[in-house]
């Protein structure tokens, strides 16, 4: 036991002395949470658009004022004619053009109907679609004002309630995701690297011939990272609650337990990688390329899983991050207890056992 403690102490020294890595280790979660909380959003704000007004009358002027008054758009340049639109798009300055047809007011008065054409640069389909929806909403509002006097019979009025996140804040979606990714990468990457590092530098041999049992060598390697990850998780949760006002509806104790479980899952994944990889480079590339992108994209962190092709929905089930994100959202936002997330918890435990079993099988106590 004393030997084991000495070994853990050595690991802590390794980590503590490497100030640069330490800085990144703790700087990363803070920077990422800040970025996601403040900078990264799916919504649109101040999108540059242009207007081509063929009728230039009171109505079109009124509509343009309304569009300007919304914070979504900023009207950039006036475009002389239709032919110039393509060039403007190619320069990439504006994202959409609104075209008012000739005699807009007159048609609206006479035929009760006038058309606004929206041309959007759909190289970014999401933004294009959102722009079109927002402009449509502004037009509908204006139309509503025009028709105040008209009474519409037989109206069904939807009363929508947005639960768990009434203000539709993006942070609620991103905080669980960022937390998962950071824990995953810190734990899996750091352990896999620190074990392969010993292999590559030749010190693994020294450790293996030491009186410490091989399994304890591995456990000793892992323990410091459990501590680091727990500190990270705490920082993230504190930031999300105090800076971004994210609620913690459920039990803090359960949240802590589940976080530790996920940290152990990631660490065991890290150990597994280290049994496969022989150099730090390989270990890092596997952790980064094979873990980072799939974790970001397939875990439901940014992109909704239900919209993916069926095959990918099936694949997403083997990504541990997916289950942890469900658990996090459940506890923090919905305030559910273990009775609602036991299935996810068991899946994570199962994955952990599987990784550990596989690592034990693959673990070589002799170096070739």
């Amino acid at each position, binding site marked *: 036991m004393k030997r084991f403690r000495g070994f853990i102490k050595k690991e802590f020294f390794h980590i503590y002395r490497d100030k640069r890595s330490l800085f990144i280790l703790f700087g990363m979660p803070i920077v990422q949470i800040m970025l996601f909380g403040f900078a990264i959003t799916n919504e649109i*704000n101040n999108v540059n658009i242009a207007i081509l007004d063929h009728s230039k009358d009171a109505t079109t002027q009124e509509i343009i004022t309304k569009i300007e008054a919304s914070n979504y758009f900023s009207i950039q340049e006036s475009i002389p004619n239709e032919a110039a639109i393509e060039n403007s798009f190619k320069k990439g300055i504006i994202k959409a053009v609104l075209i008012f047809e000739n005699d807009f007011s007159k048609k609206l008065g006479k035929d009760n109907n006038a058309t606004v054409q*929206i041309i*959007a640069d759909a190289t*970014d389909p999401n933004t294009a679609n959102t722009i079109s929806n927002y402009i449509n909403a502004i037009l509908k509002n204006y139309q509503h004002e*025009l028709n105040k006097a008209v009474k519409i019979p037989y109206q069904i009025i939807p009363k929508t309630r947005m639960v768990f996140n009434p203000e539709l804040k993006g942070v*609620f979606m991103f905080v669980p995701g960022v937390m998962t990714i950071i824990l995953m990468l810190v734990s899996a990457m750091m352990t896999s690297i620190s074990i392969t590092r010993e292999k590559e530098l030749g010190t693994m041999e020294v450790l293996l011939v030491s009186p410490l049992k091989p399994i304890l060598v591995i456990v000793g390697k892992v323990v410091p990272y459990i501590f680091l990850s727990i500190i990270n998780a705490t920082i993230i949760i504190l930031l999300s609650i105090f800076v971004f006002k994210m609620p913690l509806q459920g039990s803090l104790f359960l949240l802590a337990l589940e976080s530790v479980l996920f940290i152990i899952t990631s660490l065991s994944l890290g150990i597994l990688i280290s049994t496969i990889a022989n150099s730090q480079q390989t270990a890092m590339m596997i952790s980064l390329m094979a873990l980072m992108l799939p974790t970001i994209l397939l875990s439901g962190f940014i992109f909704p899983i239900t919209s993916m092709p069926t095959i990918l929905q099936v694949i997403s089930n083997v990504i541990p991050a997916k289950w942890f994100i469900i658990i996090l959202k459940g506890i923090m936002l919905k305030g559910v207890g273990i009775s609602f997330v036991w299935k996810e918890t068991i899946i994570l435990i199962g994955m952990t056992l599987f990784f550990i079993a596989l690592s034990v099988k693959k673990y070589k106590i002799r170096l070739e």
Partner: protein
Amino acid sequence: MKIIGYIVQKEFKQIFRNKEMLPIIFIMPIIQLIILSNAATFEILNIKFSYVDNDKTSFSRSLIDTFDASTYFNVQNEYPSNKIASAAMLKGEVDVILEIPQHFERSLIKEQQTDLAVIINAINGAAAGVENGYINQIIKNFNTNARAKFMNQNASIERPKTIEASPSFWFNKTLNYKTFMIPGILVLLVTMITLFLSGMNIVREKEIGTLEQINVTPIKKHQFIVGKLLPFWILGLALLSIGLVIAKLLFNIPIIGNLGLMYFYTSIYILVVLGIGLFISNFTETQQQAMFISWFFTVIFILMSGLFTPIESMPRWAQYINEFNPIRYFVEVMRMVMLKGSSLADITSHIVKTIIFAIVMNVLAVISYKKVT
């Protein structure tokens, strides 16, 4: 020149001999491009939809049928009560609940108007907004049909003034998400592979101790640096080529612009990345550090690059930072040239800025590189 050739040869041998790394360098990016491009979509489909029907008339059922007919919604269950439905939402079994009130049809006819409760799981705020849009549209259409049915044939209502919006989507008529994501993911893969490999390469020699051996040879500083970076420059361009072939053949992504322009820009861009990689490796002692620092900056640069979310929507300060984000320029150029066919004149400012980055980064890297320890 000859010496550089030897170093390049050595590097390539090391790359191709490493049987562990080869698949990671060449196969993994391709698999990722293929798989992940399918995953990256903001489209909201297959929404988990359930309902509580307190009216139970053919009228209320026809409302459910319209939801069923829509491709966006997966109508799953009918719940007997609001309470049970809410519990299902807590479990994550359902994302949208429609609650039809008692006497739905009757009050619509009698009182000319009726409410309809919609409950949306809004944890993903953006998705909830979109779902709400779909739901309102469906209800509106249903309402229009119902009105036509109930209305007395002879009674005419005053026609309201309508302003129609007719959207058209250029360069990507079907709003295909892959068209948008693939150029971006390609950028990501080229950047990550070249940055990580170059960043770790020299540190690795430092850590293993072979850098000292090279330092005592007559190889000049510039020869060493050029020889070290050239292989990764070639590798980056090779990756781009493979990626473009896949984009074209497998995903049928239009490549409207000039290929030469794309390669020209990429070749400058990779110089920036390699400069950063070299710079990082000069300031780190171990591969672990090098990796961590590269990872730190790539994640920030990627997330801010406009690859996933629009830059215009970011706050001012983030947009200023983005002026110095090389990945952002690469993403923009790839999308502009590939999808819109932008010309050299359209991307001149991107090219100039990238050249400046390349010069600054490489000068910094060369200055900070020391042959003596």
